[in-house]
């Protein structure tokens, strides 16, 4: 049987049509996942008003109103409370990657927070070593707060 006569084999410009469509669908889906936090970003921008009283470092923050941000923060808190304690502290950085992600999403929004957290997760590897960017703390961990990763020269 010739190749062209095989069942299911198609010729012409539409030969790989469904596969191309699948690639496009995956890219669109992934793009939507990435753009999803923009909704929260925008709604956060809409909530901005006159500066309120200064908040201390512990607890007395304004209640979170962005739903997307709440989802991300909730997921990180769930990890911190339910999953992380199973194996104990393992992160080589201080603050830990989950605390970093929580702070990054809370302070810089879901889009930038997720990017910063993904970058941090890829840096928390066996190649980790102290340097001027990440000084070694007495706890044996490397100091790397979100404020040091804002692309500010």
């Amino acid at each position, binding site marked *: 049987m010739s190749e062209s006569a095989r069942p299911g084999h198609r010729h012409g410009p539409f030969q790989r049509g*469904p*596969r191309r469509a*699948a*690639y496009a*669908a*995956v*890219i669109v*889906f*992934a*793009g939507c*996942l*990435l753009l999803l936090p923009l909704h929260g970003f925008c709604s956060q921008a809409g909530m901005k008003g006159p500066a309120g009283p200064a908040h201390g470092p512990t607890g007395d923050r304004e209640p979170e109103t962005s739903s997307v941000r709440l989802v991300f923060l909730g997921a990180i808190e769930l990890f911190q409370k339910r999953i992380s304690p199973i194996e104990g502290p393992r992160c080589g950085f201080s603050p830990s990657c989950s605390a970093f992600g929580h702070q990054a999403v809370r302070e810089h929004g879901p889009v*930038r927070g*997720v*990017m*910063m*957290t*993904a*970058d941090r*997760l*890829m*840096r928390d*590897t*066996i*190649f*980790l*070593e102290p340097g*001027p*960017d990440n000084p070694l703390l007495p706890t044996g961990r490397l100091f790397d707060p979100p404020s*040091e*990763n804002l*692309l*500010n*020269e």
Partner: protein
Amino acid sequence: MIRLLVRLLLLVAIFPALPAPPSAAETGIVITEKVQLKLADAFMAEGEYYRAVTEYKRFLFLFPDAEKADYARFRVGLAHYRGGEYETAAQTFATVRETHGTSGYAADSGYFEGLSLWKLGRFDRAGTAFDGVVATDPASEYAPLALLGKSLVSFDAKNIPGCRSELVRFLSSYPEDSRAENVRETIALLDKNQPLPRKSPVLAGVMSAVVPGSGYLYAGRTGDGITALIVNGLFIAGTVVAIHQENYAVAAIVGGIGLPFYVGNIYGSANAATKWNIGVRKDLRGKIAVSLDYRF
């Protein structure tokens, strides 16, 4: 018996007339200008800056027309500066400079006002304060220090040519100063490092967008580059294989999880290049400070 009673009455009668014991006369404390300033200076010397501020202010309250009022006001500013309250310190030094312009503390106040503003990151105003010291009292011991301070402020404001020009100004204004040789060495160091080596964050990001991890390699982070390449390679390969197998749900999940890592790799590469630039600048800044032997 009567004689005894008379003696006792006599004793009681003359008791108030007896002189007081000498120790009782010495327990009283008289607060003089000297005593109050000594107390404030003692707190200052012990590093009790907030108590020192209280005592200097008490001095100014008790003796507002004292000859050393300018000294007390200057020391209030200095205590705030050493206590890390730079905003209040800058305001206090500015007040001393304006109200005691003719006193010996005007140049000192101007110099420390510059330092306080520098600590607050207000480089322009710090430079102006240092310029004021040189302009109003060029013979003061703080005038050459103000020029050195202004050169470092210019460096911190990313104005390296400005930093160099202040050092040249120092050499022309104070050629006989003991720090002139250090300044010459610093100028040579600056010339050697001009232009400052730099990695482009934009280029790093674009490189990582094309080949994940390559931007990290460009920024000198080999380990992070290898990790980013492996992580993103696995996610991309997993997505492509799932699509080839027409398993679109798996492809969407793997692609969806991998996408933040891909974008994070771009962000991280740009961040790594930024940190590299900061590191180079910090390194040169440290060398300049050591070369100038400038401490404050």
